């Protein structure tokens, strides 16, 4: 297994990306390709004592796509960037998956243009897994496609279901459609049309569709997969992240406010650490782009070495799980013929 890391993108690049690659190589026994300015990377590898590691391969890429680059044109304007070179390596079979902590829009466009979508998939989607106290809830899409058709949402339902089955270990993932009420009649025209398509897929026994779900079901565990358009999904994801930050910050303040509170916190220290770990993005890995021909994972922009290593673990599982082959084998059921919406 060979995982390609865009070593120059992200808030902490290249240091944490290189250290994360080294950590993953040592802990997970995978080959790692570090893409970027080789002189800088070589120096960091020396500091890590990994300069001679035969399982760490360097690929030179002199340019960098940053947050100021236009996502829609970045990979074409900067073919020598670490992101474009990494994606081309994946396309050409020089690795099994790509991880990047860089510009999300550029990575998504780059993955679509260079690695390409699975034939028949209309749009790739971003599908992070959020904690729910169990195996997690997959939210698809969380920002790749602001405007969607019912067919896109149908495909997100299938792809999310396959990913949850293989990667979260849920034999029959429950797929819910985000709406403003659980009744079938609730929602926009898009939601109502997608509801009918998902219901048909469930009637044919291809997915387990539980109908509409609401925002409160993000953490309830009622649905294993929540399908939505990228606009609503992004707002939902950011709201959830903000709420978690707010709660954790205030919990910490409350537990350190007095000697009595501190004593209480000491008694539940292990439980609090478990909660903290569950909410820690460094443990989660990254966000997979579903619908692309090979695994591409967006790591958090401020990923440290541990987070990069977690993303590598996720990439290895993604490759081994056969999610892409399963999407390909079901593609005929995932399309609406005749372009009808």
């Amino acid at each position, binding site marked *: 297994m060979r995982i390609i890391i865009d070593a120059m993108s992200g808030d902490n690049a290249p240091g944490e990306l290189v250290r994360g690659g080294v950590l993953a190589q040592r802990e997970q026994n995978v080959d790692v390709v570090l893409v970027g300015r080789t002189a800088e990377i070589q120096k960091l590898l020396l500091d890590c004592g990994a300069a001679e590691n035969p399982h760490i391969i360097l690929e030179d890429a002199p340019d960098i796509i940053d947050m100021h680059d236009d996502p*829609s*044109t970045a990979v*074409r304007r900067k073919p020598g960037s670490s992101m474009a070179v990494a994606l081309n390596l994946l396309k050409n079979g020089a690795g099994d998956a790509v991880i990047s902590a860089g510009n999300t829009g550029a990575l998504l*466009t780059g993955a*679509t*243009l*260079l690695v*390409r979508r699975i*034939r*028949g998939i209309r749009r790739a989607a971003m599908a992070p897994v959020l904690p729910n106290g169990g195996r997690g809830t997959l939210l698809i899409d969380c920002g790749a496609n602001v405007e969607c058709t019912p067919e896109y949402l149908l495909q997100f339902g299938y792809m999310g279901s396959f990913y949850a089955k293989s990667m979260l270990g849920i034999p029959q993932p429950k797929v819910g459609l985000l709406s403003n009420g659980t009744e079938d009649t609730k929602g926009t025209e898009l939601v109502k049309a997608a509801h009918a398509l998902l219901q048909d897929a469930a009637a044919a026994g291809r997915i387990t569709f539980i109908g509409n779900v609401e925002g409160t079901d993000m953490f309830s565990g009622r649905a294993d997969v929540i399908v939505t358009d990228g606009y609503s999904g992004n707002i939902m994801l950011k709201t959830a992240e903000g709420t978690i930050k707010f709660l954790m910050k205030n919990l910490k303040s409350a537990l350190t406010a007095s000697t009595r509170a501190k004593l209480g916190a000491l008694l539940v220290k292990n439980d609090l650490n478990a909660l903290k770990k569950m909410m820690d993005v460094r443990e989660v890995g990254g966000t997979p782009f579903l619908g692309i021909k090979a695994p591409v994972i967006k790591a958090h922009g401020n990923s440290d070495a541990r987070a990069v290593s977690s993303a590598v673990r996720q990439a290895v599982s993604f490759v081994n799980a056969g999610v892409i082959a399963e999407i390909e084998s079901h593609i005929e059921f995932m*399309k609406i013929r005749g*372009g009808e919406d």
Partner: protein
Amino acid sequence: MNSIFERVRDIVCEQFDVDAESITEETDFLSELDADSLDVVELAMSIEESFGIPQIGEDEIRGIQTVGDLVAYVERALG
């Protein structure tokens, strides 16, 4: 040897998952194939690869509206 139109048409069919019979030189990417800007750039890249022509500029991509426009562009690029 297939004509340029046939080669372009095959690439269009592959990308948009449509039958060859439905594609003519007049086929409009936006209104008939429901393409957006990302689709058109993706198509341009497939054309560049397939015909071995240099990168199609952003302004030129914006001017390609129909299959015929794309065929004409390829003919010009191949000289």
